[in-house]
């Protein structure tokens, strides 16, 4: 079963990536072309552009999610009442399917009748023709939506992490003369680092593979301003039907994500054992 659903497609893409195959492009009938597809990646400006877009998206979104998640998580932890309510409310954006999230914001940001567009216009931020139609605005909107959707995940990890932190070092620090803020900064946050690291790892690997929201909201546009890596691959494979090149792109991305998450995981482990 595993072989059928994992190994076969993987092996097939590897084979495909050394061929030249497309169902619609003439003369691409599956000839062996060796490393041609991979060489093409090196000179593919659109691909490089998609990497930059992805990098901006991942770094900015995940950073904001982390900061916001930590702040909100700590705030919830300090609540004396309504804590369960706040925690459940946090879950809401996360349990919506990404597609629904995309559609929700598609309405909200619609240039003609979106209520967020109306808010922006009233406040005179962003141009009059809809946030999603500006190249910067579209990327900002995507990042904003990703943060809205996923900072609760980090916040929940923080709430859970705070429960596991022993109380005594925090008390010791307050006796040692640290203010509440200093206790959080010097003691709580460092103790939360392992769990935060895992949260960031999760979010980063997810954000690198972002597709749904971009597909629904901007389709990668305007132009290719929001064409993140996955969307670019989609364009190559299923708009241009250049399946072989698409397979090569997919494999390179796969290898890169694997290496990246492995590096992050290892640096996390190293900090752990150094204690």
């Amino acid at each position, binding site marked *: 079963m595993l072989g059928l659903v994992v190994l076969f497609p993987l092996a097939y893409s590897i084979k495909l990536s050394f061929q030249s195959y497309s169902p619609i492009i003439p003369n691409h009938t599956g000839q062996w072309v060796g490393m041609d597809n991979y060489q093409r990646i090196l000179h593919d400006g659109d691909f490089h552009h998609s990497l930059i877009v992805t990098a901006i998206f991942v770094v900015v979104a995940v950073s904001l999610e982390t900061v916001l998640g930590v702040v909100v998580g700590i705030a919830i932890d300090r609540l004396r009442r309504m804590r369960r309510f706040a925690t459940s409310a946090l879950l809401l954006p996360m349990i919506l399917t990404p597609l629904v999230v995309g559609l929700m914001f598609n309405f909200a940001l619609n240039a003609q009748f979106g209520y967020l567009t109306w808010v922006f216009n009233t406040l005179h931020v962003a141009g009059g023709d809809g946030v999603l139609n500006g190249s910067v605005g579209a990327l900002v909107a995507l990042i904003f939506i990703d943060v809205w959707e996923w900072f609760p995940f980090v916040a929940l990890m923080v709430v859970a992490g705070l429960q596991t932190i022993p109380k*005594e070092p925090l*008390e010791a620090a307050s006796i*040692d003369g640290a*203010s509440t803020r200093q206790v959080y900064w010097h003691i709580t946050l460092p103790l939360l680092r392992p769990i935060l690291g895992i949260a960031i790892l999760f979010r980063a690997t997810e954000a690198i593979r972002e597709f749904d929201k971009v597909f629904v909201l901007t389709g990668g546009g305007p132009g290719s301003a929001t064409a993140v890596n996955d969307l670019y691959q989609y364009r190559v494979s299923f708009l241009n039907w250049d399946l072989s090149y698409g397979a090569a792109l997919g494999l390179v991305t796969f290898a890169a994500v694997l290496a990246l998450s492995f590096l992050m995981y290892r640096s996390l482990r190293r900090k752990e054992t150094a204690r």
Partner: protein
Amino acid sequence: MAGISFRDATRRYAGTNAAAVSGLNLEIHDGEFMVLVGPSGCGKSTTLRMLAGLEEVDTGEIYIGDREVSQLPPAARDIAMVFQNYALYPHMTVGDNMGFALRMAKVPKSERDRKIQEAAKLLGLEEYLDRKPKQLSGGQRQRVAMGRAIVREPSVFCMDEPLSNLDAKMRVRTRTDIASLQRELGVTTVYVTHDQVEAMTMGDRVAVMNEGVLQQVDTPLALYDRPANLFVAGFIGSPQMNLLDGVIDDGAVRVGGYTLSGTPGSWPRNGRVTIGVRPEAWRIVPAEEDGISIEVNVVEELGADGFAYGTSSNEATPHHVIVRVANRYSVRKGDVLRLAVDLDKAHVFDTETGQRLST
């Protein structure tokens, strides 16, 4: 340096009837080593945490020196605390742990380092300054916790069962280390423990607590020699004091058919009382003399001396009696011993109120 004064200090947890600490009045002198002792739940830790500012004072006041501190945050009280599980900062090195309070107080780095070095030298931690707490043994962590308290040069040390996570041998050694360190530094210290041996050996004075109420404060020997009530009598001393049912009858004190030897005193009243006899206060007498007979069940040999545990045949004390036996092998299981006690070595308590009646 400063003395400490609890004035009617009370702590009540929400949703409970009894106060965790109720109306505590306690004066601790400047430089004194005060031990708070009692069974778990007696309020000793709560008392310490109230002093440290980790627990609110619901009514009453606490003074450190002449400063009323009960509404101040922990940071403003100029105290240092050693926790039961040390509460070291796991992500910092030993040196950073010890220097944290100084860093918070914005002490310049050079002076900080000098003080850390000094404390490390005092505690034998010099070679561990760059290690993380996880890489240290229990005893070393305990010393780091001490070091963290020492570098601050606070006016009060608070110690919450700092030895209970150590093994027995380490505990005895650290016990004397802490006591002599405290004497050397002369810092007023409040030390919480449930172990009456720790209390007796370390404290200048000992405060015995039970169910949130202070029972007695005195020097260790005075507590041992003149326990103020039945609780203190039973709590201080190991093995425990024998507590026997007795009566006062025209000035004489009797346990069953046995009348304690000595001149009859003047007692506030006749009637039922509880007689306390320390294991070493018994005299083993020939069988024909007046006394209480016990049949020995167990003999605990400790080397220098031993304790015999027996069952009394006296109808008034159908329970266990413990007696110290000085000579090796002089007593065996199954022996019948005749025990007598002088009135001036026995403690007489009111059975109803638990208060001490003998002078």
